[in-house]
């Protein structure tokens, strides 16, 4: 039964992609994004010796306040959707979509598990490449891989910029301007810092990068490319426009590029920001933390302790989720610990510190890769 479904999916890749999109977006990304709106408030409270929102309940069920995100969603939907009279209406409506669509689409390139070996779910698989038919646990396997991510990430700048411009508000325009300058500056460093990892693992394709990292943590990107890890993580946090890089929002002086948005339109910007943090965690996991790899777990099991294929895959998918949860937690920790940069400090950090360091990283890595391959 399960095998025949998988075989059908292996043969019809378009339907399989649809199923995987549903699984990934409805089953993982959206719930996690909604939960992080609650987790952010609860975690920041814990860090600041408060309790945070723990009141929302359905009858007697409080669930530590997790239901607050339901209350938030209901509030957002029922709030008045105010459109100021002088806005550019079409662009004003387009901006939230431009903010959320790219960050949802880029999840297509993230592998959330290894290839499923059709027909051998309950057998021990020693060599996954010998499978007759496979269902990759990745929506789209493209050779351009992470370049696709950079292409779409630069599109998401338009969400902030259009929102700032279309609102006909000088503060939101300043916010949009800051957002576009910041995101463009840091995208350079993001791309260059990943270049070292591409050189080491010999591919742009996320699944190939994860497979190349293997189950030995000493071969993961965080160990082989420590400088790139720090650079990429910093630049990517700046790309999400959250503290300490939240200048486009800048509550005390600007309120941000979404100052004129209300109701669910604002909610979409809010959600896009959280999805962006999850996606950043996914990229860092894929390139630097071994993706779905578990230390010591091969496709046949832990060393000589054999496990059925399905169990191995499930463990690896859970490990992938846990790595992402940890990185989301870390981002919230950073967001509530560090003070905001000044615009000149932000630009200095991006262009005069991160950029030369990432160039240095590429040169050193390229030399090392060349030396290891024997100069060929």
């Amino acid at each position: 039964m399960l095998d025949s479904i998988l075989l059908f999916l292996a043969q019809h890749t378009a339907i399989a992609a649809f199923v995987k999109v549903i699984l990934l977006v409805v089953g993982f990304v959206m719930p996690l994004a909604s939960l992080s709106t609650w987790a952010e408030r609860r975690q920041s409270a814990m860090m600041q010796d408060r309790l945070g929102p723990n009141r929302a309940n359905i009858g007697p069920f409080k669930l530590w306040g997790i239901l607050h995100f339901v209350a938030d969603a209901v509030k957002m939907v029922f709030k008045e959707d105010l459109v100021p009279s002088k806005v550019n209406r079409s662009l004003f409506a387009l901006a939230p979509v431009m903010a959320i669509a790219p960050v949802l689409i880029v999840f297509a390139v993230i592998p959330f598990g290894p290839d499923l070996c059709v027909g051998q779910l309950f057998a021990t698989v020693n060599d996954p490449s010998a499978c007759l038919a496979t269902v990759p646990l990745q929506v789209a396997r493209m050779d351009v891989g992470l370049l696709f991510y950079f292409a779409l990430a630069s599109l998401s700048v338009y969400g902030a910029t259009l929102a700032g411009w279309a609102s006909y508000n000088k503060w939101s325009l300043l916010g949009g301007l800051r957002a576009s300058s910041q995101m463009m500056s840091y995208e350079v460093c993001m791309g260059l810092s990943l270049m070292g990892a591409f050189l080491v693992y010999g591919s742009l394709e996320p699944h190939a990068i994860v497979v190349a990292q293997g189950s030995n943590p000493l071969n993961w990107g965080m160990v082989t490319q420590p400088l790139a890890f720090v650079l990429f993580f910093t630049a990517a946090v700046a790309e999400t426009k959250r503290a300490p890089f939240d200048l486009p929002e800048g509550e005390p002086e600007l309120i941000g590029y979404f100052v004129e948005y209300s109701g669910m339109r604002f909610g979409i910007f809010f959600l896009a920001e959280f999805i962006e943090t999850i996606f950043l965690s996914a990229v860092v996991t894929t390139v630097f933390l071994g993706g779905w790899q578990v230390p010591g777990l091969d496709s046949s099991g832990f060393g000589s302790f054999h496990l059925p294929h399905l169990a191995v895959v499930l463990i690896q998918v859970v490990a992938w989720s846990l790595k992402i949860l940890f990185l989301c937690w870390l981002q919230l920790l950073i967001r509530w610990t560090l003070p905001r940069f000044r615009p000149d400090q932000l630009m200095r950090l991006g262009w005069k510190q991160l950029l030369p360091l990432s160039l240095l990283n590429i040169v050193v890595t390229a030399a090392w890769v060349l030396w290891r391959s024997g100069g060929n």
Partner: protein
Amino acid sequence: MSHAHAPSQSDHTPSSASKKARVGVRVVGRPDSLEQRIYLPEVIRGLGVTAKHFFANLFSRKYTVTVEYPEQKLRYADRHRGLHRLMHREDGQVRCVACMLCPTACPAHCITIVAEDTGNKNEKRPRSFEIDELRCIVCGLCVEACPCDALRMDSGVHAPAVDFRGDAIQAKIDLLKRGSQSVATQGGIGADWRTQQPTVKQYDPPK
């Protein structure tokens, strides 16, 4: 650099500098060590502090001092000013004699009293006694002004949340409901706290 606050010789002659006291600007270099200028070790140290608080509060509420209000209540000080109440005589009548001192003292004009004749030539009494708790600024001047110990704010009750502004007006009947018998002597008439304990049921403020 250490003498940068002294007037420089090239700009001013010594005589003009000694004549006029000037505010100097001392340029002080940042005392940052290399470790601080790299910033990353300090970031990690900062994250360590917040993570320590996070985990300590997550597992044992070690540092939190939050009082979860509806379930947990702190005892208020005796002089805490809560919702108003009107005190009773020993026969349950209102102690207020409608002297109008409290609406006169009230800076927010939130007290409205309509007096009526009691038939007793010595006293009036309030026909209606209303306090708009939304206008009240909880200053307690009305209580200070009252010569009869008729109006108090020691109920320990918070002003309730209401759906309509009118609902926040406390009428005489509401104010009396929270009242209790005062054992202060009023105009030389009535019970004396030295000799007589209250005879009607006492109001029990919430703990």
